[in-house]
């Protein structure tokens, strides 16, 4: 065997198998350098073993025993997160059905879409049937919505992401100086019949008919009111289909 200093270390520690141990032992007989290494390592190991340890900090044992009582095994570290996390999730679930929050969310999306030039519509048409076909192709049945309400005419539509992470059909109506959005709200909202509110300077109405919730957002109260009047019969027919 030629010199193999690492194996000499294993030999000193008694960590070699019988065959390797015999080979190193035989080698040590003939090699003063490796013999010196083995002796030096044994001496060093003895010194290291005799090193006094540092003093145990006062009260560490008590703190270890206290800590496990404060965070006992039945209530592991993960559980410290579980409660706040559950609270956040519950709040999210609660918010997504909370009418004022939904109203705010729709107003936010209305403002966002109409602040873009051009409008971010995916389907451009003033024909309700064309828009309804586009949504049907994408898996959503819409009520037959009006092409025009007062001065405002249908210009296009798309799906918009809401804060509830659902995407809602969003129809754009516009006139020279004003805009109205009609949303089909994909999630359940806690409301009896209608919810009227103002959010972000917009007028918002949420209407419920059977299981469906439709949201109307516009800058002018009267126009939003006109849309509600126009949509009520449509939604009633749709809900009873």
């Amino acid at each position, binding site marked *: 065997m030629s010199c193999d200093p690492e194996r000499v*270390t294993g030999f000193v520690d008694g960590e070699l198998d019988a065959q390797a141990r015999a080979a190193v032992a035989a080698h040590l007989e003939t090699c003063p350098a490796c013999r010196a290494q083995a002796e030096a390592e044994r001496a060093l190991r003895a010194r290291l073993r005799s090193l006094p340890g540092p003093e145990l900090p006062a009260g560490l044992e008590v703190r270890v025993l206290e800590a*496990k009582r404060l965070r006992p095994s039945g209530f592991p570290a993960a559980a410290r997160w579980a409660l706040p996390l559950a609270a956040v999730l519950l709040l999210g679930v609660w918010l997504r059905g909370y009418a004022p929050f939904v109203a705010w969310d729709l107003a936010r999306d209305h403002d966002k879409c109409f602040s873009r030039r051009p409008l971010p519509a995916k389907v451009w048409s003033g024909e309700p049937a064309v828009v309804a076909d586009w949504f049907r192709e994408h898996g959503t049945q819409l009520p037959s919505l009006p092409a025009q309400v007062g001065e405002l005419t249908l210009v296009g539509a798309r799906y918009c992401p809401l804060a509830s992470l659902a995407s809602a059909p969003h129809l754009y109506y516009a006139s020279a100086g004003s805009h109205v959005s009609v949303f089909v709200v994909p999630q359940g909202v806690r409301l009896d019949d209608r919810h009227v509110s103002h959010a972000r300077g917009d007028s918002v109405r949420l209407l419920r008919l059977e299981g469906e919730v439709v949201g109307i957002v516009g800058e002018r109260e009267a126009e939003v009111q006109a849309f509600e009047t126009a949509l009520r019969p449509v939604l009633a027919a749709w809900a009873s289909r």
Partner: protein
Amino acid sequence: MDRDQRFEEEILPHLRSLFGAAYRMTGNAYDAEDLVQETFLRAHRALDRFEAGTNARAWLHTILQRVRTDAFRRKKRRPETVELTGEGPAIRPAQDALASGHEDLERALAALPENFRTAVVLRDLQELSYAEIAAALSVPVGTVMSRIHRGRALLREALAGRTS
């Protein structure tokens, strides 16, 4: 025997020894104390997974290394390794060591690169087997042997350098 009783009889007696190792690994008493406290907390929680009759100290070191790894990840940086300089030890040696003429050895140990120091501490101070060290550090046994070899060689060089 309930969990607390088992913990106090089989695990807690290793506190002093683990603290000594943690002290030499981290280089200071504060980090060592945090490390050891978290290690024993996890050990208490995981006590069902400790096989009676196996080496409790080796099991504790496996947990301790995991605590260190987690702490590194949290800090997103490597722990400060102590470089070999002539400016004295970054680890303050135990007062006993100073008094008993081990200062040169404490200095040399503190100055070892971290991987070598950890391997030497686990082997020569904690008296773990290569297999136990390999398990604690998640490295092959051959790597353990190599690190102990390099660690001891560097210690011997440092000690020889100081005495000459």
